């Protein structure tokens, strides 16, 4: 039997299986953002998260919803706790940040703070208003 005939046999209706029905099963884990930078953030969660998992971080801040894609790069149990995890996540820049992007909002806020990168968007009203202080600074 030639290779072509073998291929033809493979294409017979009997050899064609029903296609798998693919679904997207999504786990929704409540999380709190503890600290943040332009490239990532530290979250606190009551559930362990797999390192390397890629997903979407959605924040509700002052009636605004901000969203960005993140990759989990670290997950450790909070010292002294039995069920609270610290989750390190980096933003995954798969597309240009839109109006509702966390990265964009954070960059906008940080530019207006001491230590920010400059006045590029200083005239722009920040999308998120929250008191932010430097790490290590006493509030």
């Amino acid at each position: 039997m030639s290779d072509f005939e073998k291929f033809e046999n493979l294409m017979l209706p009997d050899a064609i299986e029903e296609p798998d029905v693919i679904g997207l099963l999504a786990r929704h884990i409540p999380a709190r953002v503890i600290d943040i930078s332009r490239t990532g953030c530290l979250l606190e969660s009551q559930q362990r998260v797999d390192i390397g998992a890629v997903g979407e971080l959605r924040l509700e801040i002052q009636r605004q919803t901000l969203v960005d894609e993140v990759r989990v790069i670290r997950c450790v149990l909070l010292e002294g706790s039995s069920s609270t995890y610290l989750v390190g996540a980096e933003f995954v820049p798969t597309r240009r940040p839109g109006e509702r992007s966390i990265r964009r909002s954070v960059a906008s806020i940080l530019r207006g703070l001491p230590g920010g990168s400059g006045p590029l968007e200083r005239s722009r009203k920040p999308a998120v208003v929250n008191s932010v202080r430097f790490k290590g600074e006493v509030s």
Partner: protein
Amino acid sequence: MRGRRRDQRFILATPWEGTLRLPLDVIIESQTDREVWVLSTVPAHRDEIFTLDAIEPAAADAWQVRVEESVPVLVDGSVRHRLRLAIIGES
């Protein structure tokens, strides 16, 4: 870890509340009006809540589901987990 972080970090005086949505591809084996059976690469806890979107071959359905059962099964020599999910609403 020295040199690991590229950018200065800022602590939020009031932590922002949010949700981390972690999706996973599954194979939908069968479904009724009330339940869906899927094959997953990872197990799930009973009573855990997920959203399930049917994306192939005919997109459209999206449900909120609750895990009723998670059983390890052998599929083509690999361990998979058959999840029985109760449909508790539309997503």
